[in-house]
């Protein structure tokens, strides 16, 4: 399944950042994100064993989201139409200081598998100079 969401005005993005920041305080470093057709949920990773359990749901109907797309759902098995993942929520807080007018989040694969060309040159009178180029 694929998921992407778009927020496109500063008050909505600031409200969303407040929610993320509050989630970060409730979480003990890691947080579970549960995406369902109608909401984005931030869920405790520790359960009651960690002292307290929480679920903070941001419904699609909240008007914060301009777009909220979940693709690839199985209509025959509604209960399985969920995406669960864990992340270090502080990583998200740190890149969202506020004041943004555009925020897009999308689940994807790491795109760092680029091809590099490496060349080394040396003049008789100089050390080896390395040059790495991204293709």
């Amino acid at each position, binding site marked *: 399944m694929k998921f992407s969401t778009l927020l496109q005005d*500063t008050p909505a993005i600031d*409200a969303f950042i*407040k*929610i993320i*920041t*509050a989630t970060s*305080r*409730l979480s003990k470093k890691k947080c*579970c*994100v*549960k995406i369902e057709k109608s909401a984005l949920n931030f*869920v*405790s*990773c520790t*359960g*009651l064993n960690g*002292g*307290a*359990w*929480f*679920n*903070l*749901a*941001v*419904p699609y109907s*909240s*008007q*914060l989201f301009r777009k909220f797309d979940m693709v690839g759902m199985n209509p025959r098995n509604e209960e*399985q139409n*969920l*995406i*669960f*993942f*864990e*992340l*270090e929520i502080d*990583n*998200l807080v740190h*890149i*969202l200081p506020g*004041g*943004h*007018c*555009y*925020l*897009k*989040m*999308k*689940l*994807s*694969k*790491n*795109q*760092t*598998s680029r091809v590099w060309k490496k060349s080394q040159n040396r003049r008789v009178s100089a050390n080896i100079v390395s040059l790495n180029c991204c293709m």
Partner: protein
Amino acid sequence: NDEPILSVEVRNPESDIVSHQVPITIILSRYWPSYARPAIADRRMSISMPPPKFISRFLHAFKNSNARVVKFTASRVGDLRISTRIDNGEIDASFADLQTAVMDGDSQEETASVELTIRNISTMFHSFAHTKSRVKMNIISHRMAEFTVINEDYNLSFIAGKSPE
């Protein structure tokens, strides 16, 4: 390099789009039940709490008095008492005329109480102190409490088990 990531693109009014990649770990469906809401007994007492910033201040004051456990006692007529024991005695705050909601199957007790670890709940009240929405508390006597906040942007359900102390 097929690791899943959360790709986050942001733009300020005076800058271009900046893209970030946040590493994530996909959770397989067989582990989903471990994230499910803890089971809560049906017999509960529900009361609408004073504004969260008030509760946050009380909890902060309790913590500064070296208290570690807070006791919530709610009555069916809308009274709520928040108390804690400290070295030299006891501190308590009482509120009256709070809204209660009795549903089928709810507790028939006149009062319900639960002791919670301050550290477990103070972060929640501090984090949501800015909200104008009321926090509703469901007490399952001597076992746990559930705090809920429902407003136009989000719904929070926060469950704390009774203090082991």
